Every structure is written in structure tokens, then in C-alpha cells.
């Protein structure tokens, strides 16, 4: 067991290391990315640039720079931005986390509820018009570019119908902390939640529908029927119980990716200062310390989610539990 944990940890570190190297190299391959000019300020003389370069170590070999960066990010934890000088990277990332968590958590609640609900309803009515209609809707959700849908939602709720009773409650874009005003927090997030969850509702409903229909072909469902169980019990305790394992693994990975900044487009469109937008800004600013921090952060969540999903999978699915 301990060995397994160590191996898993090694895996995580390895992947994170690989990604940090890739991100680092991508950054240094960018022209105009020499941060000296920005650190020195505008209109600095070439001499001043050279001075900055030396003092920040940009004239050192890449691996030394990489080492220093990682040391400051993970060990000293005092890495500061190249663009917003003096801003420590770690607290900034930590500050963005609750925003992303708020967004993703709310959206997750919606998409799990709606996705599972739609999946079940479609399975119950499989082959009928209801099933087909729901699946068409789900597919529409999957087919929509999230940024476009977000813009349209903004257009509707902020402008076109903002003056009507329907959307007059929608506050301006941005984010209000839950602790500042829970009601405002909720109101600002409703539209982003909905937008983000639409894709996943479609996705989950489809996956669940497919998985449930497959389960209904399984022998054990036949056994359950032969036992005299009611259809709802067969659905909930037997078919769904098995499908949920698949769905939860999927959910874990999606949730991890989103918490890690995967909701970048939603955050940009709705102007939520979360990890995704932080990353996007860092990339736009070519702010290496921030890029490294956010990339490491996202990767950490993706890798962690992978690990957790494995554990959860084992916990939920006794077959997997014993296979190890």
C-alpha cells in the first residue's frame, strides 16, 4: 500500500516536472519574451537592460534559470511576477482559487443533477420521442462553443433583456466573494454556472444514457428483474449504481481540470478573476513566474484528480479495488 502511494506520488511529480519543463521551454522560445525589458521599465537604456538581465540571472544557462525559478516557486515560495513587480505569485494563485472553486462547484452541482436527471429520463423513455429530443438537446449543449454561448448569455442578461423582470436581477460582470455578500455571490455566478454547465450537462447525459442502456443489456439487470424488483429499483440500485462509477471518474477528471483552470474561456467571458483568467493574463503578459505557477497549479489538480479518481474508482468499484 505504501509502495503504491510512493509510486503514485512519483508519477505525479514526474508528470509535473515534465510539464514545468515544457512550459519553461515554450516560454523561452517566445521572441520578445526577454523579461528584462519589462522589468527595467519602458524606455530603459540598453545598459539598464543588461544590468537587469544580470541581476535577475537571465544571462545564466537555461537549466540554472529553471532551477532558480522552481526553487523560488516551491521552496522559498517568494517568486514574484515579472510584470506586476513585487506581486508574489503564490498568494495570487491562492486568491484566485476560491473564485474558480465557486464557479466550478456551482456548475458541477448543476451539471451533475441535470446530466444525471436527463440521462435517467432518456433511458427510461429510450427509443421514444422524449429520448430523442433530450439527446438532441444534449448534443446541442456539447456542440456549442462555450465562449460564444457565454457572450450570448451576456447579451441577453446584461443588455437585451436586462431591463425586463426576467434578468433585471443579474448584477454586472465580475465576482463578489461569498463572505462579502452571499446573495450577490450567488447572483453573479448564476449565469456563469449555467453557461459552464451546459456543455457538461450534454456530455454527462449522453454518457450516462449510453452507459445505462449498456447496463440494461447486462445479465445482472435481467437477474434483478427475475428477482421481482421494480423498474425504479433496478434503475437506481443496480443499473445507475454501476454507471455512476464511470460517471464519477469522468466527473473527477473534469472537476480537476476545471479547478485547475480549465474554465479559462468561461472565466474570461464572465470576467471572473479565477485561475483560468489568471493563466490567460499571465500568458498574454508572458509573465513567466505566473505562467509557471498557474501551469503547475493546474497540472497539480489534473494529476491529483487522476489519482483521486483512481482511488475513488477503487473504492466504488470493488472489482477494481481487488485488482490491485
Amino acid at each position, binding site marked *: 500500500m505504501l509502495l503504491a502511494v510512493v509510486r503514485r506520488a512519483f508519477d505525479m511529480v*514526474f*508528470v*509535473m516536472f*515534465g*510539464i514545468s519543463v*515544457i*512550459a519553461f521551454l*515554450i*516560454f523561452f*522560445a*517566445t*521572441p*520578445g519574451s526577454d523579461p528584462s525589458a519589462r522589468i527595467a521599465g519602458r524606455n530603459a537604456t540598453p545598459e539598464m537592460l543588461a544590468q537587469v538581465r544580470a541581476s535577475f540571472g537571465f544571462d545564466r544557462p537555461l537549466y540554472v534559470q529553471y532551477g532558480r525559478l522552481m526553487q523560488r516557486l516551491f521552496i522559498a515560495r517568494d517568486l514574484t511576477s515579472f510584470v506586476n513587480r513585487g506581486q508574489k505569485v503564490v498568494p495570487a494563485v491562492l486568491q484566485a482559487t476560491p473564485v474558480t472553486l465557486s464557479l466550478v462547484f456551482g456548475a458541477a452541482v448543476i451539471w451533475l443533477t441535470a446530466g444525471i436527471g436527463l440521462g435517467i429520463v432518456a433511458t427510461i423513455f429510450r427509443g421514444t420521442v422524449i429520448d430523442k429530443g433530450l439527446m438532441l438537446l444534449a*448534443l*446541442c449543449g*456539447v*456542440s*456549442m*462553443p*462555450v*465562449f*460564444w*454561448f457565454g*457572450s*450570448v448569455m*451576456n*447579451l441577453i442578461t446584461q*443588455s437585451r433583456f436586462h431591463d425586463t423582470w426576467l434578468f433585471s436581477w443579474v448584477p454586472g460582470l465580475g465576482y463578489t466573494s461569498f463572505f462579502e455578500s452571499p446573495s450577490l455571490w450567488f447572483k453573479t455566478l448564476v449565469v456563469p454556472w449555467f453557461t*459552464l454547465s451546459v*456543455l*457538461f450537462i*450534454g*456530455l454527462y447525459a*449522453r*454518457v450516462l444514457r449510453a452507459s445505462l442502456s449498456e447496463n440494461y*443489456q447486462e445479465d445482472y439487470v435481467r437477474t434483478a428483474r427475475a428477482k421481482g424488483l421494480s423498474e425504479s429499483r433496478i434503475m437506481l440500485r443496480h443499473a445507475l449504481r454501476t454507471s455512476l462509477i464511470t460517471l464519477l471518474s*469522468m466527473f473527477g477528471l*473534469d472537476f480537476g*481540470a*476545471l479547478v*485547475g*483552470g*480549465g*474554465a*479559462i*474561456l*468561461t472565466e*474570461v467571458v464572465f470576467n471572473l478573476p479565477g485561475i483560468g483568467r489568471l*493563466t*490567460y493574463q499571465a*500568458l*498574454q503578459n*508572458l509573465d513567466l513566474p505566473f505562467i509557471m505557477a*498557474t*501551469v503547475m497549479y*493546474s*497540472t497539480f489538480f*489534473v*494529476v491529483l484528480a*487522476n489519482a483521486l479518481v483512481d482511488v475513488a474508482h477503487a473504492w466504488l468499484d470493488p472489482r477494481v479495488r481487488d485488482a490491485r
Partner: protein
Amino acid sequence: MTIVSNTSAAPAGKDKRNKPKGPWRTALSRLLRDKLAVASFLFLASIILSTASATYYADHISQTDPFQSNLDGHIEISGEPAEIMAADSEGLGLGVTPIGPTWTGQYLLGADAQGRDVAARLLYGGQNSLIVAFSSTALCLLLAGVVGTVSGFLGGIVDTILSRLLDIIWAFPIYLLAISLSIVLISKGLQIGPFHIPSNSLLLPITIIGVVYVPYVARPIRGQVLTLAKSDFVLASVCLGMPTARILVRDILPNVVTTLIVFAPIMMSLSILTESSLSFLSIGVQPPAASWGTIIQDGQGLLYTRPLVAIAPGLAIIITVLCLNFLGDGVKEAFDPKAKLRVGKD
């Protein structure tokens, strides 16, 4: 109950009029029986055809160059001259509004902020969106097919290295990777050996999108090849003394190709969405070339006055992706009903 499926395995010789059908033809005929898939395919074909007619449309119907700014032009609408970019006269007289939908041949869907015909651009943009989607899918499937097959078939250290590499790319959030690569490559262009891809070339988004999705396809392919390599019929080939290369070509690749075919429509829909996202962030298709994503981005600045500029390309994307997904479902059912594919990712 699946008792009926027995009938599909009708033994030979009983059915006289049916010529022996290969698995490809069987799958194809199964696909052709899927009405929704066929309809989607036809719809897609009509989208492709109409985007292919972009030049004709621009030359003969809209009669504007959709790539030239037209900031001080005029057209005639029912005899009356109308400015394409009309400075506003109400209030303080701030702002300039492009001409709206005219519902005539010219500026059917109105003009964008550069005074260009949106309808014509939509068609040209569609060309690029589809070219990017198609090419990046082809690239992705090719790379993934090669990597997955090599990794799964050779095994050992090659497999270890390749799958680790895939693991790393896979754990790199897809949009982050695509955006990072785009920002870098858009400013510099890409140098692969003697070939230089300039930064405004369509090849850049194609390469980027093609590469970032490789793990999504290569991993299942690798798994499949691993299973195939242990399958009875490969074992039979080994037992018959078939050379390794022949086993690869005859026994493994056809199955890999099937999987790739099943992946193709889904990857295309993913590519379209990814391309539009990158273009939306101005790091996909570069102006003056257009794609549906860049038109949405252009329209973003006109969302409040001319929402159609942003909404129309969005609808084009949805319809196309929807068709691709329907087609994908059909292809999956026809070629490999057991395949477990995941569509879409934020």
C-alpha cells in the same frame, strides 16, 4: 434482449443475391441505413459546398472583397444610397455603426467593423474553419495512429517513453497547452527543419490543434493495439510464421484505422470548437484570413449594436458541430459499436 443479432450472422450460401461483403462495405451499408447520419452528412456536404462557393458569392452576389476594409463605401438599397459605416447622429453623435442586415444580396447579414460583408466572410471563414478542422484532425489521427501503434506494438522501452510523454501532454490542460503554443508560435512562426511556417499561416493552428489532441486518440489506440497484439488472430499469424511487418499491416492496422475513422468526426467537431476558441482569443487563424472563430471575435465588439455579426458564425459552428456529432454517432454505430469515446471537453 439481443437474440435477434443472431440473424445478422447468417451463414454463407443461403442468401443468393447478396455478394460477399467486406467489413468495410458492411459498415458503410450500416452507416447508410442510419438516416440521421446520412442527413447530417448531406447537411455537412451542403455546408462545405456553400463555403466552397465563397468566391462566387463575393464576386457575384455581395460584390465586395470580404478581405478589404470598406470604411467609406456606399451601397444602394431600394434606390436609396446607404453608408456602410454610418456615423451616428443621435445624442452626442458618437460611434459608427456598420450597416445592418439588408436582406438583399449585398450585405445580407450586414457589415462588420471594417465595413466588410459578413455573409461573404462567413463563407470564407467557414472554408478556413473546415480546412483547419479537417487538416488538424487528419494530422492528429495520423500522429496518434503512429504513436499509439508503435507504442502498443513495440512495447518495452519505446512504449514506456512514448506513453510517459503522452501522459505529460495529457495532464497539460488542453487549452492551456494550445494557448501557450499559439502565443509562442504566432509571434515567431514555426521552424521544423528546413520548413518554415510563417506566423499567419493556417498551418500553425492546424499543427497546434493536431498535436494537442494526440494523447486523446493515441492512448486508446495504444490500448487497442496492446489488446490486438495478444488477440487470437495475431497469435495465429505469429504461429503461421508471418513477418512482423505483415502482421502489423494486415492484422493490426485495419483495426487501428477503423478506430481512427470512428474518431474522425468527433475529432473534427473538437477541432472546430478548439479552433474557434483560439481564434476567439486572437491566437488561432490570423487576420486578414477569417474563420468562424475570428468572425465571432470581430463581432464581439459589435455585440450590442450588430449582434448578428457574432451570432451568425456561432450558429454556423453549432450546426456544423452538431452534424459532425450526429455523423460521429452513426459512424461509431456502424464501425465499432463498442467503442467508448468521449466527446467534447471544455
